[in-house]
């Protein structure tokens, strides 16, 4: 009993460590990457003992210290308790969602099989959506507690956008759930190791390409990144719903956005790109379709799976950053129209076509 609790604690620590570190590193990639895209140098002024590390020291050391040592204020006539609560509410869903995302297959230690997933819930993906739907509250409360018209406007737009794209996100995943027949992310990841026609791994992107595009769009919109960042429209609404935030609270909003990005990347990886699957790698080693087999010790297999998972997540985070600095911002009515009039019917059509295909192929 105590050993099991200890194992869960270690797994939670590993996942949290990974997510928070990735969020920080993504902050740096964002600053340096955007600088490269915009043909400038970016932040390079801060250095430790002469080591500026391409802006690493600036983003990962100087920025957090700056944020944390700034004055922490609550706007006059603003609600003090809610103003402080909002960033915590915004940060919480992004971290908690990672509890069901598997980062590896089983790790066999002695006689114990450890499932490399913090919580093996039978409702799996529904838990992810439930936590994502709680993400709206951070914005709504933050906007309202600021007692500022710009914040309120940003907050209303942001929450409307988030709840619209939650619907599209949920529906686009339905096809995947129908194909793999389960709600549990670990089972979905395992099912993607199955080889179609003997050589093609049955990844989600192969079986549901349209759903992947829909989910990618909806995930970008959910985390309020450009081109959907009207809630924090930097050039339009001052800073949108986090206008009246500075210091540590703003850092939590900021880090929360990056954590959401990492979570979205984790979801896309698990649902559409096989999660921790390396093509042709099974629990005992590589089994290539042309016949050659490599036997690999179990620990190396697990290490390869974790590395594959991290690589895929980092790729998608990089993709999100690339999208951010390439596309201009959508107008609010365009965002709403895209969510309700384009993504939703497309997701429904995808669902119907998937259902027909499953019925035909199962016969």
């Amino acid at each position, binding site marked *: 009993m105590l050993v099991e609790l200890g194992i869960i604690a270690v797994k939670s620590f590993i996942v949290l460590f990974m997510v928070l570190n990735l969020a920080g590193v993504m902050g740096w990639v964002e600053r340096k990457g955007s600088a490269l895209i915009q043909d400038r140098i970016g932040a390079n002024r801060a250095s430790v003992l002469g080591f500026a590390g391409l802006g690493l020291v600036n983003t990962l050391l100087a920025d957090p210290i700056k944020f944390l040592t700034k004055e922490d204020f609550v706007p006059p006539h603003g609600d003090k308790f809610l103003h402080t609560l909002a960033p915590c509410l915004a940060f919480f869903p992004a971290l908690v969602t990672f509890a069901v995302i598997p980062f590896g297959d089983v790790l066999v230690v002695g006689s114990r099989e450890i499932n490399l997933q913090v919580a093996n819930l039978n*409702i799996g993906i*529904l838990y992810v959506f*439930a936590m994502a*739907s709680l993400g709206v*509250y951070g914005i709504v*409360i933050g906007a309202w507690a600021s007692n500022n018209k710009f914040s309120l406007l940003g907050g*209303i737009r942001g*929450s*409307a956008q988030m709840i619209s794209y*939650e619907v599209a996100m949920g529906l686009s995943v339905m096809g995947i759930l129908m194909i793999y027949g389960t709600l549990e992310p670990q089972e979905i990841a395992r099912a993607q190791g199955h080889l179609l026609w003997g050589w093609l791994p049955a990844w989600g992107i192969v079986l549901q390409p349209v759903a992947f595009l829909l989910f990618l769009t909806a995930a970008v919109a959910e985390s309020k990144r450009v081109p959907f960042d009207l809630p924090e429209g930097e050039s339009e609404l001052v800073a949108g719903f986090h206008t009246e935030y500075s210091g540590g609270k703003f850092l939590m909003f900021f880090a929360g956005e990056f954590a959401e990005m990492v979570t979205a990347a984790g979801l896309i990886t698990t649902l559409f790109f096989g999660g921790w699957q390396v093509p042709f790698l099974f629990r005992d080693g590589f089994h290539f379709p042309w016949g050659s087999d490599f036997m690999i010790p179990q620990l190396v297999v697990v290490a390869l799976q974790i590395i594959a998972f991290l690589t895929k997540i980092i790729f998608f985070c990089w993709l999100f950053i690339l999208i951010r600095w390439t596309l201009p911002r959508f107008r609010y009515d365009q965002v709403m129209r895209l969510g309700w009039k384009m993504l939703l019917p497309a997701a429904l059509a995808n669902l119907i076509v998937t259902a027909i295909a499953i019925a035909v192929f199962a016969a």
Partner: protein
Amino acid sequence: MSVEEIGFFLLATFLVGFSVLVILARNPVHSALALVAALFIMAVLFLTLNAPMVAALQVLVYAGAIMVLFLFVLMLLNPGTVERGSALAWGLTATAGAVLALELIGFVMPAADSVQRLPTSEIESRFGSPEALGLTLFSGFVLPFEVASVLLLVAIIGAVTLARRTKE
């Protein structure tokens, strides 16, 4: 007192506390947030009762959508702090509420005694899972399911019609 009972009493205290906060708070936004917290604790209670699917639905639908709607309307209408009514009204109603609670409990206790609670070992492992809920819902309750979807359609049309700005 086992761990489960301690956990239950903790959750129950918070639930009743937040519910009282809903009806007592002077600021409607505080009421709404207290209700969100109460709904979340309800979801946790559902989890302790072997109903994970319903708990997920509770957070998704109730705490994640309906309460967001309430908060939206509150932000749009912006009522500010509201009057709470006289002490006499509160006293009378609280007494009536207490009497009602005692009566309900009086009815409920014998009913609960007559129900044999199934021990955990006899509850099948799939109880409360999405499969079980789906099977029951779509095999015995198809008609109410379809009627519920029509009901939601009616609600959507009604809400859009009611909230539309008519050109006067």
